[in-house]
């Protein structure tokens, strides 16, 4: 039972509303803010669906490239995502959000 860490790479930062819209398209539930700067989507039965952190803009991409094993450009936005073991709905939300903002969904190595 592995836990997956994904990343959205994009040219702009996804907004909170865009996250909520992507989440709403998959499940009705609630978003909770965790102490430590993460947002956490729970479904109607309070089961975790996806967690994300505030985006950061990449100034120097060397370490970011190593983290995903592929080229990353300076100026891109990096958004960390964590999925529960039952990851399908979370992946769908992350993929819809990445598509909506013209970004790509990557896996950490």
């Amino acid at each position, binding site marked *: *039972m*592995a*836990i997956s*860490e994904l990343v959205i790479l994009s040219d702009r930062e996804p907004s909170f509303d865009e996250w*909520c819209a992507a*989440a*709403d398209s998959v499940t*009705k*539930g*609630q*978003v*909770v*803010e*965790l*102490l*430590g*700067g*993460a947002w*956490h*989507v*729970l479904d109607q039965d*309070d*089961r*975790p669906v996806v*967690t994300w*952190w505030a985006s*950061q*803009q*990449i*100034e*120097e*991409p*060397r*370490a*970011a490239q*190593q*983290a995903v094993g592929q080229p990353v450009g300076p100026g891109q936005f*990096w958004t*960390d995502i*964590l*999925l*529960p*073991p039952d990851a399908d709905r979370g992946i769908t939300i992350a993929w819809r959000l990445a598509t909506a903002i013209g970004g790509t969904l990557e896996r*950490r*190595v």
Partner: protein
Amino acid sequence: MTLNGFTGSELGALSYPGIHRVSDRFIHHITQLARPSLSPALAQVIFESEIAQRTMVIVTTERAVLSPFLVAEMRRFGNFWAYQAHDLSFRNALSGLPVRGWGDLVSPARPDEMPWFPPAESGQAHAAISIEVVAHHRAEGSLLVGALAEAFATTGGRANLDVMGMREPLTAMWSRAALTQRVRSQMPKAEMVRAASPDGAFVDLAYERSPQGVIERMNGRLVLGEYGLWASQAVNIAAGILTHLADLCVPVIMTTSLIDVEPCGGQGIRRRHEEVPLAWLGGPMTVRRAEAEVDVLAERYAGRRIGRRAVPSLLVTFPSQAGDPRQQLQRLLTDIELGGRKAAAANEEARPNGDQ
């Protein structure tokens, strides 16, 4: 969607997807990543473990290599690392001993237990210098922090630090000015900043105000190269680093040791060379507090007096030709600690009764 604020623990630990299993003592994080790092997700697990007063156990595959920053953070919080071997059994990643129940992580090994590690590839073992520094700076308007980290990273002409940040990946460009600004804005105690170079330097930097100025704590490692080629040169390199760093600050204490790491600077699961002390530097305050004569100690430990004449520091190296480096370090520290205790006792005795 509605928005509410909680800690993961308040939600019930299993609601935070980074936490896979909770027991009375431990919180488990299971990952199949090849290179687990101090990502926000993992930092959150460590944070939640602290809130829940439990110890985090990261469970990886046998091929995982932990990043240097994750290793340092786990060491700071006393976390454990276990891995699932090819036969599906669990083992302690540091000792190689079997983990039949999670309590085994904190229990002494049974006499019949044998460590086992996955076979290592040849050339995998790399020598690195591990460093811990406590230094003092005057709180002047012109103070630009980060000089010690740069000096450490550029040892022997290596490339300077290029990235910094709080969590991995480090995405901000290394800049002493930006670091100083961040630290100033967070005083009296700044959140730890991490920095790395493309040539294998990794440093954690923490700053806090003291009545006399700014205290800097730097922990780091610098990859030298293949263990067999570099281990014998490490004492001299470490002595050079400490001498250089002492010129850039008022040292309090600095220690260096030789460690065995992966080529990337991280830590994999294999049988490793033991950590060996390389060199130690006691700054003027440390030496004075122990009421030790720098010249006496220097002679006793084949050390050397460095720094300004009025406020000297003591540099001692631990070459293997002079015996077991661990014992050499132990003798020195015992001597200094005993000196400090004797001085404290003498001060106590000298006090008038009414002061007690």
